[in-house]
């Protein structure tokens, strides 16, 4: 269960210039939900994702994930929380372009220094699931957008996180690849993952398997 209680987030650009990205938001997300956050650029969608992921802290209010007040956690505990609970899929994939598919995917596991056999098993399983195993030794900058997106999904899933956060995941994909991505989401939801997507891609607005579509405008929930 994810709870956002009276969350306000203000970015202080300098002393006389601040931006209120999110204002007094309350949001409850149940385990296994797939939530679509829609709204124009600058409406506060990405800020909500960052708050849930523990990438930033609120100016006021509390973010609770599984009864744990993550907005009150010190930074190094937040890193642990992210590593264990969150899988990220970014608009620009955020892959390391000069590393191979395999090396990009295993990156989140490196701090745990896992046994090589376990690592290889996990890697093989995840690459087969998202049909990218045939490209495992290719340097990612040589892959197509859709393939890079799949690598990013593999990387987000390698730790088997409970929550998957995707920020504008189809912004750089054509319609066919976007539909492929939606299929992957359906599959992940079927596996019981909690998924939160920030998007303004209309393909997401009428998904039959989405639990809720939330409209954000000027940092507030409209509907």
């Amino acid at each position, binding site marked *: 269960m994810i709870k956002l*209680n*009276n969350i*306000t987030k*203000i970015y202080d650009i300098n002393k006389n210039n601040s931006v209120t990205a999110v204002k007094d938001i309350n949001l409850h997300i149940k385990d296994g939900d797939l939530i679509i956050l829609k709204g124009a650029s600058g409406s506060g969608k990405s800020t909500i994702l960052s708050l849930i992921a523990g990438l930033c*802290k*609120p*100016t*006021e*209010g*509390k973010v609770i994930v599984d009864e744990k007040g993550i*907005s*009150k*956690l*010190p*930074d*190094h*505990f937040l890193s642990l929380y992210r590593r264990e609970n969150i899988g990220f899929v970014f608009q620009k994939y955020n892959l390391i372009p000069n590393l191979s598919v395999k090396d990009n995917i295993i990156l989140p596991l490196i701090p745990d220094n896992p046994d090589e056999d376990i690592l290889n098993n996990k890697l093989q399983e995840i690459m087969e699931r998202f049909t990218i195993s045939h490209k495992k030794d290719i340097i990612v900058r040589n892959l197509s957008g859709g393939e890079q997106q799949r690598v990013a999904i593999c990387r987000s899933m390698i730790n088997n996180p409970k929550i998957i956060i995707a920020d504008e995941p189809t912004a750089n994909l054509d319609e066919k690849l976007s539909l492929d991505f939606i299929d992957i989401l359906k599959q992940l939801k079927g596996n019981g993952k909690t998924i939160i997507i920030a998007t303004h891609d209309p393909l997401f607005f009428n998904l039959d398997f989405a639990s809720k579509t939330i409209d954000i405008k000027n940092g507030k929930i409209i509907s």
Partner: protein
Amino acid sequence: MILTPEILAIFILNSLFLFFGIIALILSIKIYSKWDLNSTKSLQYKLEKNSYLTSTIIKFIFLIKLPLFLFFIFTLDKISNILPGAMCAAGVVDATPYGMYLFLVKIINLYLFGFWLILDKIDVENEKLPYSKLKFGFFIIIFFLFLSELILETTMFLSIDPTTMVSCCGALYSSTSASYISILFQIDPFILVSLFYTNFVLLIIFYFYKNSYIYAILSMIFIIIAIISLITVFGTYIYQLPTHHCPFCFLQKDYYYIGYLIYSTLFIGTFYGLAIPFFKNISYYKISIFFIIAYTLIVTIYPILFYLKNGVWL
């Protein structure tokens, strides 16, 4: 006034410590007075952010100050070469009225800074930051001792007159000395050595019994008895001279800098001994007893070697 590269380095560092220390003090007062961990208001989030910065500043000051104590002793030793009459750091300490006070404040601060660093470590290792308010309150108190140290240190170095004759350690640490140090030599060495080893044996016993309060009290007594017995008894075996009792000379090259090892083991061992009741960490017993045994072995080996070589005790 005397100005050597070492003193200049100490002055520059002290200026930096003072500048950052004042920033940390202001932030600590703010955090201490307004901290409410359960609050989800913007002020609390701001204070939590500030607390990381403040802890980091204090941590770096103290982490540098601890080894700097050895550098301070090294500096005193070095400038003893230019002071007429001084044979070692003892002469420099005695050259001004501030030297001995500075030394005492420095030793007290060593322990307090160490306590603060442990408190900070325990605090940041817990996701609920249980000791944040306490550690900043503690810093506010020790800041004034920290400030006293900086002022005394600066005043001492500025007041040293390189043209004035100072006493040598042989005159300062003797039974004929005009100072309170001469009282130490009225104690029977046999009683002193017995007290030292009794204290040591009791520490070993309470290491096994794990009584933190008694262990801490024994550690405190050990610091005092260890230093007195080092000056009056064990030191003479290091120098192999029955009349030389200086607690500084064995920090010099002639004695293979053994003093640094002696004082380090004594301070680390007793520090962890004193820390046990406050932090309830069972591993501190091991660290403490390891260094206390190391200290005892080092100071014991000198009389034994001397006896084996010469067949007499000093």
